[in-house]
């Protein structure tokens, strides 16, 4: 939808700025990123450049401010050449300014954006994953989540979380923004529910799916229940996500860092 609205604005301007926009034309979308795009030094240099020229608008970790949340925006995986052109030329007709950085620095920025918006297991995530695993067990995460068959199956499985989600989304699940819930990723709509059936029996757990006509609940034991709403007398839905929102207060900064380092490495494809 965004694209749809933006394009008509860009089209007339494109004619006007023809020389500088040449790079943004689709021929350049094939532009190849240097091989160094993903190396840690290059990403770290990109992070510095980002902090000085971009963070003011896009937020310190790319999660948005005056400019949009880049992690969400870049999830659609635009080609390297298009990303480069956006950084180089800005987006005329919007607040996104062009930069005068060298090609090399522009690629470093692109590499940084890729690392924060791509799967967490491909980003450089500092911390001690071994302590993170201990924190995972101590903090009771396994009471709701399983990793490779260990833990409760009531909440989402985390065996592949590092390969499926960017770091920001994992962090967000643990430390949701209170001031601006629209910045959060975690909410996939899982609800804590309690059902009272017409025969008086009750059932509770996490709804994997709920419509007016049927309900699919996983209970604490990890058992699935398929419920027809015509058999239900009363449905209690807990406000907000069943995922506790207070780990930011409960865990020390070090433990939180290590927990993230541990989660970011959860990938079924890594040699473990």
């Amino acid at each position, binding site marked *: 939808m965004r694209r749809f609205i933006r394009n008509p604005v860009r089209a007339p301007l494109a004619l006007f700025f023809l020389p500088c926009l040449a790079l943004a034309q689709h021929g350049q979308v094939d532009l190849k990123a240097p091989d160094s795009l993903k190396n840690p030094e290059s990403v770290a240099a990109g992070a510095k450049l980002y902090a000085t020229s971009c963070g003011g608008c896009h937020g310190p970790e790319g999660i948005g401010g005056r400019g949009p949340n880049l992690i969400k925006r870049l999830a659609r995986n635009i080609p390297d050449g298009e990303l480069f052109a956006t950084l180089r030329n800005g987006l005329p007709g919007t607040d996104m300014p062009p930069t005068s950085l060298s090609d090399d620095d522009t690629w470093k920025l692109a590499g940084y954006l890729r690392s924060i918006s791509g*799967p967490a297991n491909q980003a450089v995530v500092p911390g001690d994953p071994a302590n993170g695993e201990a924190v995972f067990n101590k903090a009771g995460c396994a*009471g709701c989540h*399983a990793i*490779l*068959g260990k833990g409760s*199956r*009531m909440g989402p*499985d985390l*065996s*592949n979380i590092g*390969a*499926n989600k960017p770091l920001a989304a994992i962090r967000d699940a643990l430390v949701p923004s209170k001031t601006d819930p629209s910045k959060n990723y975690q909410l996939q709509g899982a609800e*804590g529910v*309690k059902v009272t*059936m017409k025969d008086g*029996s*009750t*059932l*509770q*757990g*996490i709804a*994997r*799916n709920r*419509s*007016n*006509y*049927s309900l*699919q609940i*996983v*209970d*604490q*034991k*990890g*058992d*699935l*229940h*398929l*419920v*027809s*709403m*015509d058999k*239900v*007398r*009363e*449905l*209690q*839905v*807990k*406000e907000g996500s*069943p995922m*506790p929102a207070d780990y930011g207060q409960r865990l020390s900064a070090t433990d939180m860092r290590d927990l993230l380092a541990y989660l970011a490495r959860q*990938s*079924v*494809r890594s040699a473990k």
Partner: protein
Amino acid sequence: MKNLILTLLLASSLPIGTAAQVRYEDIVKGPGADWLTYAGNYEGWRYSPLKQITPQNAGSMTAQWTYHVPDSGGLRTNPIVYKGVMYVTNSNSMHAIDARTGRLIWRYDDPQATKKGVNRGSAISGDSVYFTTTDNYLVALDRQTGALLFHKKFGDVDKGTTSTSAPLVVKDKVLVGSAGGDSGMRGFIVALSAKTGEELWRTWTVPAKGEKGSETWSDLHEWGGAGTWLSGTFDPETNTLFWTTGNPWPDFAGGPRMGDNLYTSSVLALDLETGKLKWYFQFTPHDVHDWDAQSWPVLLEIQWNGKPRKVVVHANRNGFFYILDRQTGEYLKATPLTDNITWAKGIDDKGRPVLVPGKDPTPEGNWVCPSIKGATNWMGQSFNPGTGLLYVLTLEECGMFTLSTQKPVPMKNFAGGAATEPGGQVYLRAIDPKDGKRVWEYPVGNTSRTWSGTVSTATGVLFSGDDDGHLIALDAKTGRHLWHFNVGDSLTASPITYEVDGKQYVAVAAGTNVFAFGLFEPVPSMALPKMTTTK
């Protein structure tokens, strides 16, 4: 609520989900309300004892729900149903849906898979559901929540192998095949532990140099193909697996691989415990038309010379229908499956084709029947013990086979030539499996686009798909039309039937969706429950 969830025990629970497990005996019993294995039962019948839908009332079937599979196309998945939950697969993903309503319960994705491709479905055992990724990992998931149990590599993309078929679970083993035979690879069937994914045995379908059978290859046998990209069948009495194999590689160029090319285009009988070859039968020695043998072997007992005999029947892509002894693999009989067969005059009394000379692919092109698509293919056939008939989708089509003069290079997708599929006529044919005689046939359009198979039921209703995107119901006895429904896309998978809460459904994947049908029932107006939101 968190504490509520963690501390309160369930006051009551519904039958679904509680402690039930899929046991080997449940699969042996064959389908009832559930559909537990690719072909319905181990013998490959795609037959259901359900009786709600009959030839008399099939005309009043209506759509019950649709589930859209995101990022899909030409879905080939054969659904598995257990206790009201349906499992469907797409490339590198599995979706568990409520089989009464089509609502998604959980979804598993493997975005790191290095290849995408078709997937024919899943298998279930205990509390696990299994499927394979295109790049050869066996994935085991908790059937209720989708939690990952293990993820084990069993094949090598770098050696030309990919995975497309539904696994077959027998007892403690998950059996998985291999695909990729059109661009060079060495086929295998592998047994993995259902608990851990650990490899238990592996049987190569092309012998290594020096092994028995390797003398049937002048060269290239390390890339010789014989993929095993369709699930096999199983005989619980003798603990024997029956698995068909694919074409030799390069598909159309026989020169570099003189000889019969064992065990390509064959059926193999393997011991479940060890994977050892009990016997084999090669349908098309030295196949140069990419016919392979991918249509599963159906296990039956028929009257043979006045006595009951356990047999394997097989409708082959090369145009013939075969009857073999189940214990020994002895050839008993072959009859034409299609009217147009130009490459062989018939089958001799040893089971070898009597070749018509000059039908190999040539640089100028050679017109041969059947076409590359074959007289039939992997689309599911079904056997109905009530009618005693086998239902097979067959294609009357011929095509041009050309030979390339280039040197074959493995994994470069070089099949050694090319073949055309000019279009033909698909017939759904009812065959008497004891003599191969055609009892009736029903033309299913004329674009030869359908890849839909069949399923039939105890009341004598046969479901299949046609070329124009209709799911159809026919009278299994006579082939008379009973019902049709336009799903709006080509059918590329086989229908199944199952029951939840006393209602019989027929489901099929087509294009990018899964559809479920059942008898029309007015939906009673329903009062929504009282709903409260708590902090």
